[in-house]
């Protein structure tokens, strides 16, 4: 980009990171699908390669945007494009989680009761699944994956909820500190937020190990599928949010943001709140109600 006219919409040219990101995402999804659908144990090398490509892309793309921003190449038009990018990103995220929550609600309130004979499902139950009681949680009338036990919501899920809520409190304090131009306080509270996010992920992994000991696996029918899909994808979002917060923390420490100009910080802070609210929904609908 040679020169910047005020308020002119900025279209980046020679951008190589989008195609790198597309290759990384395709490799990750293909690799993961191959592992999940294989009859035999497969080494997920394609998935790992994809994840590494995505990390390289994040490092490269973030770095390029930060460099261009610091060189003063961005005008108000670019600022608008960042905000539009954010709203589309969040729209896709909302649709993504709406699909999985929708699957959970459909199974719990409609399809499982039908198989149990509720509503118009009486003959279905009598002819196909006689004796099956459609009680949640269930791995379905065929008892896929065998007998399993569900996790105690008072134990790890409760601690994890407290950890994430606390991390949202710390990121909010950092937000207020940023607006008050207290840089060192902002850094301290952001570091606390990242550490709380890391603690959440550690406990989430511990919980998965516990679940597998209770024979609650990804193979455990509809409950296992919805449980691991919802909590697993949420965990990936926490990981991504923590990486973004860590980058923002370094940028705050370097003095990249001003009390009246800190969209990058604010967007990531909002994203962290979003991830926390999704967990609150998970805690309520997956573990409690």
């Amino acid at each position, binding site marked *: 980009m040679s020169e910047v006219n005020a308020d002119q919409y900025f279209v980046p040219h020679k951008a190589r990171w989008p195609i790198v990101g597309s290759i990384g995402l395709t490799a990750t999804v293909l690799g993961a699908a191959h592992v999940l659908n294989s009859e035999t144990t497969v080494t997920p090398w394609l998935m790992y390669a994809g994840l590494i490509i995505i990390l390289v892309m994040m490092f490269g793309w973030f770095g390029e945007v930060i460099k261009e921003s610091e060189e003063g190449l961005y005008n108000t038009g670019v*600022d*608008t494009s960042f*905000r*539009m990018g*954010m*709203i589309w990103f*969040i729209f896709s995220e909302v649709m993504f989680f709406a699909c999985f929550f929708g699957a959970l609600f459909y199974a719990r309130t409609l399809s499982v009761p039908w198989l149990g004979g509720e509503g118009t499902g009486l003959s279905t139950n009598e002819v196909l699944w006689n004796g*099956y*009681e*459609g*009680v*949640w*949680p*269930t*791995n*379905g*009338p*065929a*008892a*896929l994956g*065998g*007998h*399993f*036990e*569900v*996790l*105690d*919501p*008072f134990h790890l899920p409760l601690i994890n*909820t*407290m950890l994430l*809520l606390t991390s*949202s*409190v710390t990121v*909010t304090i950092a*937000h*207020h500190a940023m*607006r008050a131009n207290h840089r060192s306080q902002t850094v301290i509270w952001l570091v606390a937020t990242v550490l709380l996010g890391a603690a959440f992920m550690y406990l989430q992994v511990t919980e998965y190990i516990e679940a597998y000991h209770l024979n609650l696996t990804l193979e455990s*029918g509809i*409950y296992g599928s919805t449980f691991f899909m919802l909590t697993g994808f949420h965990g990936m979002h926490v990981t991504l949010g923590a990486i973004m917060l860590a980058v923002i923390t370094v940028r705050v420490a370097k003095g990249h943001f001003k009390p*009246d100009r*800190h*969209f990058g910080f*604010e*967007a990531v*802070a*909002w994203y962290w*709140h*979003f991830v*926390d*609210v999704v967990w*609150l*929904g998970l*805690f*309520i609908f997956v*573990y*409690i*109600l």
Partner: protein
Amino acid sequence: MKYVIVVALLFVLFSLGQALFYLVKGKGQSGNTVKFLTVRIIASVVLFLLILLAMKMGWVVPHGIKMVPAG
């Protein structure tokens, strides 16, 4: 009690949505963004305490307790 929890969660979502509105609107609306995010976290903490109270008082029984999974 379930409905109270769901309504409280909807309020949390609404506050988060308002914060997003001011975030993408820009033009010096950062004060409103942080204001609604603060409302959102306060409401979330209150909701969490409400859930704890509801479980303690037996108004809500988590399905992980006293439950024999089907199959």
